[in-house]
């Protein structure tokens, strides 16, 4: 039985294990951040959990099942942690799961290139479970760095199986599954050899162990004795709720702990120095092991990494390189999307006529015919033709940069700015995730330890445009701001303008963070530690196939489920008349006066409102609405589209305001749902809704009013 609220009666952990049969073995996959746990997870389960080269990529716990020799194994991917001492809510869940869940085996994934520091977690885990398998991953990378790891030797010293793997290349996995099976069946024939602490600590532990043994036989008494001496509040809470009673209130235990603490105190140890001593002894043990089993002959590789890092972070080159990289990605997206976009629109709009003819031939009623072809189909065609290509190009490019390990350097470069706004540098990471999807960015904020800084990151995530908003921005820039130029000049100018717009978004992120820090989320910045992982060669082919494939399917699915009904609504509104004018005109006329203040028009504002479920459909809806009141019928390219927009009174100011409002308005419904889940509070959710909306409206209003005044002068 896995650990659920039902099975234990205690809410020890929030993790629910999904099994196929009750006999499935539960395997926990733990390890330091960024050692390739998710890659091992994917390789074993055949799933496609997204991986990225930065610590904290896995938030929440992924689960998957694999089948081996007639048995099912439920694999739980736990967020990376340096030790079993928790710092954040996320780490607490991981720790409680490892300590208190009924797990059949724990696989600790280590990085072969820095095994010594990874062993700290291994040694701690050995104290809580005798069913541990050490998986030394990234052996291929270690080989490139001329590091040799003697896994057999480590296995002898630790007394548990140690399996070398290169999960990215699917090497060593069959040995790993075989060892997992042997361990769950108690066939490994090995007993873990635990860390011997300094003699004072060992004596103190021996004083408590007998008393603890009588309380529970489910947890190892030596480890429990150590934890009672350690006296970490959050751990004791979890322990009490697991045991169903307060351990330190049991007389025998309380007595033993008291005398052990008195003994330690006489030897000169207080709570702080005791904890320091534990960590020091664990690290000393880890060093002994690594000295015996690891050999490094060359540091050339490290020197190259260091040169790269200095180039990417130095005073003179750090920020320019970052901007160039952004510009480059945007340029590739813009110029790369042109051709498939034209191809798709020719194809899809070419199909409209045959489709219409088909409807006529089956004698479909004209209202249904119109609604399906001119309502639903047309919006779908717009979404696919204009929105899909830039998304399908931007996402894999961004993923490659992420796989390479560049994002933590961005956080490193930008931390100072975030610190000045009293926020956390890791917010730069969640901001970058927002480029892919704001909902993902909001969930990613779990990597930020301080609750105050995490809230700031959640509330401001929407200030960077997500994948769904890029195409809108790109098409408007192409139509209104680079007209008259062609070829590379046009695409480069577009990329520069888009970069500028993104910088505006980043600037607003910082400004909003600062304002939040000074008002509702007062506080000083907390401490900050960020690991800068080594650069890794991205798995280019895999990234391309997976992100294009997953993204394409995802967007198409969303287009069908969201754009189709929206298209239907628009069509109905354009065709149902009330008092001589269409419903659409009524609505846009109602919104028009307010929208004009913002430099938009009623149709656009309505499109933004209807686009609440997904930003991808805002432009297609606006186009549909304009078209329904126009006599023109051919709109299959941006030139014709621009004419349509000009005919509806667009100026460069309308275009600019639409872009600003697209960059800064309410988050889409998916993002808001994530915000509600992450903050657990409607108030913060409402603030996340109104903050970017208010900023966007103010900016549009000032721009419009400013331009009006200038033109009057």
């Amino acid at each position, binding site marked *: 039985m896995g650990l659920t609220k039902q099975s234990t009666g205690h809410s020890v952990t929030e993790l629910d294990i999904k099994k196929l049969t009750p006999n499935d073995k539960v395997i926990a996959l733990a390890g330091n951040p960024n050692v390739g746990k998710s890659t091992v997870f994917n390789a074993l389960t055949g799933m496609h959990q997204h991986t990225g080269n930065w610590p904290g990529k896995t938030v929440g716990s992924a689960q998957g099942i694999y089948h081996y020799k007639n048995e099912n194994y439920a694999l739980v991917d736990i967020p990376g942690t*340096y030790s079993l*001492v928790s710092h954040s809510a996320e780490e607490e869940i991981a720790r409680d799961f490892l300590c208190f869940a009924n797990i059949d085996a724990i696989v600790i994934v280590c990085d072969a*290139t820095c095994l010594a*520091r990874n062993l700290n977690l291994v040694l701690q885990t050995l104290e809580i479970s005798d069913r541990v398998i050490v998986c030394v991953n990234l052996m291929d990378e270690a080989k490139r760095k001329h590091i040799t790891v003697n896994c057999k030797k480590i296995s002898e010293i630790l007394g548990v199986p140690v399996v070398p793997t290169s999960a990215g290349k699917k090497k060593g996995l069959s040995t790993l599954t075989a060892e997992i099976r042997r361990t769950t069946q108690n066939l490994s024939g090995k007993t873990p050899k635990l860390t011997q602490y300094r003699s004072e600590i060992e004596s103190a532990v021996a004083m408590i162990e007998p008393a603890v043994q009588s309380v529970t036989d489910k947890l190892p008494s030596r480890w429990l004795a150590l934890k009672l001496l350690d006296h970490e509040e959050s751990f004791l809470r979890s322990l009490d709720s697991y045991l169903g009673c307060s351990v330190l209130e049991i007389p025998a235990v309380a007595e033993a702990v008291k005398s052990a603490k008195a003994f330690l105190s006489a030897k000169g140890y207080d709570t702080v120095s005791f904890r*320091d001593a534990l960590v020091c002894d664990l690290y000393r043990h880890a060093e002994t092991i690594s000295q015996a089993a690891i050999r490094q002959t060359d540091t050339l590789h490290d020197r190259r990494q260091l040169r790269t890092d200095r180039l990417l972070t130095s005073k003179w080159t750090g*920020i320019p390189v970052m901007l160039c990289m952004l510009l480059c990605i945007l340029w590739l997206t813009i110029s790369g999307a042109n051709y498939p976009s034209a191809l798709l629109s020719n194809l899809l709009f070419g199909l409209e006529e045959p489709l219409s003819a088909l409807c006529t031939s089956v004698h479909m009623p004209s209202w249904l015919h119109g609604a399906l072809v001119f309502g639903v189909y047309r919006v779908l065609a717009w979404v696919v033709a204009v929105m899909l290509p830039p998304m399908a190009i931007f996402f894999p490019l961004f993923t490659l940069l992420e796989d390479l390990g560049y994002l933590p350097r961005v956080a*490193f470069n930008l931390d*100072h700015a975030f*610190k000045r706004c009293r926020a956390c540098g890791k917010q730069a990471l969640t901001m970058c995730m927002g480029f892919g999807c704001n909902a993902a960015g909001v969930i990613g904020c779990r990597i930020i330890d301080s609750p105050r800084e995490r809230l700031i990151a959640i509330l401001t995530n929407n200030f960077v445009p997500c994948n769904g908003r890029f195409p809108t921005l790109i098409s408007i820039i192409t139509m209104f701001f680079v007209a008259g130029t062609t070829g590379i000049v046009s695409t480069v100018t577009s990329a520069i303008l888009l970069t500028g717009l993104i910088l505006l978004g980043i600037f607003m992120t910082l400004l909003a963070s600062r304002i939040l820090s000074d008002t509702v989320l007062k506080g000083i910045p907390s401490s*900050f530690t960020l690991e800068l992982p080594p650069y890794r060669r991205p798995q280019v082919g895999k990234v391309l196939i997976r992100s294009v494939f997953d993204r394409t399917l995802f967007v198409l699915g969303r287009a069908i489920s969201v754009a189709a009904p929206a298209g239907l609504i628009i069509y109905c509104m354009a065709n149902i008349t009330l008092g001589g004018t269409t419903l659409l005109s009524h609505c846009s006329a109602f919104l028009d006066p307010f929208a004009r203040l913002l430099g938009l028009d009623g149709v656009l504002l309505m499109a933004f409102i209807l686009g609440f479920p997904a930003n991808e459909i805002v432009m297609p809806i606006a186009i549909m609405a304009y078209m329904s009141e126009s006599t023109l019928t051919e709109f299959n390219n941006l030139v014709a589209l621009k004419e349509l927009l000009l005919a509806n009174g667009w100026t460069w100011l309308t275009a600019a305001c639409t872009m600003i409002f697209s960059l800064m308005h309410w988050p889409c419904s998916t993002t808001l749902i994530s915000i509600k889940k992450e903050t657990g509070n409607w108030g913060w959710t409402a603030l996340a809704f109104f903050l970017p909306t208010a900023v966007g409206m103010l900016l549009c209003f000032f721009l419009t009013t400013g331009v009006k005044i200038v033109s009057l002068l």
Partner: protein
Amino acid sequence: MSYFNLSKLPVGATAYVQRLHAEGAIRRRLLDIGFTQNTPVSCLYQSPAGDPRAYLIRDAVIALRSEDAKQIEVDCRDN
């Protein structure tokens, strides 16, 4: 042997951890990362603004802000 705090370590130089003045959560975090007594730590490079800086400790590169580095006392030996 001279004692000073980690934020004063020049880029490229190496020193040895003596003691942590940090308290609470950040102390545990630093210990977990491996800032234990006598561990060598070197400053590899700094960010464009000069803060945070990146330190090499136990084969990993960790970025620390100067406020946190100030809490780590180190000594320079024989060099």
